[in-house]
């Protein structure tokens, strides 16, 4: 099934004509999410159904490569290309309010993260998939004792080092954009297949991948001078370093698994679920900025 990246409506396999009609109908009603997706991903210029169908088909085309390559290129385009996501731009300098916003909203992301990974485990019998997700849950939320705290613990400690209170992070109410994104991820995980859920979630880890220059990334996840400069707290450096210093080869393991189990039958489902998730992620990254702004305005 080919999916609308905006609302998730599904059309029969390879049916870009119907997808184009769906977009034209939505644009005719000036529906903001569909129009802005067309503007940012396809073209700002109104075109007819046939031409749009061709451009959508091109957008989803694998161009002889695998799903791993398609996801990486699409992700780079969305978040770290010449027009990066505003959160990525904000991370090019050291801004404590942005990091405070990060600490609060990401707590809610990670709580959903382990739920999504658990759905993957529950929906498959493949050992390599289950092993991967089990280890992931441990690393992200549970940790391996005092010497190897979880990513979640490092996040909370970063927040504390910037003056936030642990309890206030854990008991915070997520901003609406975070909540909307979390609902999208939970819906994908509960209603769709394990491979779609994996693609939806693990593609997002590309945001911090430092190997993406060869795929056209123009911006690093954050300015590496933050790690060497004297401004950042030790806890900020510890949190950011965790992803930054991770083995590059390890960063593609999930995408390799997805590629291994991706078939012509489920390819479009995987693309569609990834795209829905990428849109939700874009929304969610704004919530980190918004939370930072809220904290700044309170001071």
């Amino acid at each position: 099934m080919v999916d609308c990246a905006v609302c998730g409506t599904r059309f029969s396999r390879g049916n870009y004509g119907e997808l184009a009609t769906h977009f034209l109908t939505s644009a005719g009603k000036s529906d903001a999410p569909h129009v802005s997706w067309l503007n940012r991903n396809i073209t700002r210029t109104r075109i007819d159904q046939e031409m749009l169908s061709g451009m959508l088909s091109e957008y989803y085309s694998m161009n002889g490569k695998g799903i791993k390559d398609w996801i990486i290129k699409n992700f780079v385009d969305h978040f770290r290309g010449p027009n990066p996501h505003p959160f990525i731009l904000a991370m090019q300098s050291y801004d404590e309010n942005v990091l405070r916003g990060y600490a609060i909203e990401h707590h809610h992301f990670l709580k959903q993260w382990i739920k999504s990974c658990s759905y993957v485990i529950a929906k498959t019998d493949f050992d390599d998939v289950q092993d991967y997700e089990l280890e992931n849950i441990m690393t992200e939320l549970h940790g391996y004792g005092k010497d190897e705290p979880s990513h979640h613990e490092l996040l909370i400690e970063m927040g504390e080092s910037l003056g936030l209170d642990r309890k206030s992070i854990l008991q915070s109410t997520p901003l609406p954009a975070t909540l909307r994104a979390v609902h999208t991820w939970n819906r994908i995980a509960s209603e769709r297949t394990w491979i779609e859920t994996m693609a939806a979630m693990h593609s997002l880890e590309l945001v911090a991948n430092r190997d993406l220059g060869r795929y056209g990334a123009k911006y690093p996840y954050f300015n590496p001078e933050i790690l060497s400069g004297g401004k950042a707290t030790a806890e900020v450096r510890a949190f950011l370093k965790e992803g930054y210093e991770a083995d590059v080869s390890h960063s593609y393991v999930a995408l390799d698994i997805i590629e291994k189990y991706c078939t012509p039958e489920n390819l479009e489902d995987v693309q569609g679920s990834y795209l829905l998730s990428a849109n939700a992620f874009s929304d969610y990254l704004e919530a980190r900025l918004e939370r930072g702004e809220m904290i700044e305005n309170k001071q």
Partner: protein
Amino acid sequence: MKTNNEEGCGLCNATWGEYHRDIQGEDMFFCCNICADIFQNMVDEVKKRTGWNVIDRVELHGNYSSGRECTAYSGNNQFKYYFRTYGDGRMMKFEER
């Protein structure tokens, strides 16, 4: 009000959509209600900061990602500013330049 986006939406110049809104008593075309909201908020903010009654023309350069560098004109006066919004149109930052 005139803008440098002559082909399409008053804010982003896209030619999708059929959205119209009254701005300063004049019918303007936008690709969607969010672009119209952003434009309306921007006009209100410029008027608030300058005390102008009417804006004659706005030049906008930029996009959603980087925000927009703008110049507004009213008679012989001009006002330079930068702004950026959230995806839903709410103002994130507005700075005089």
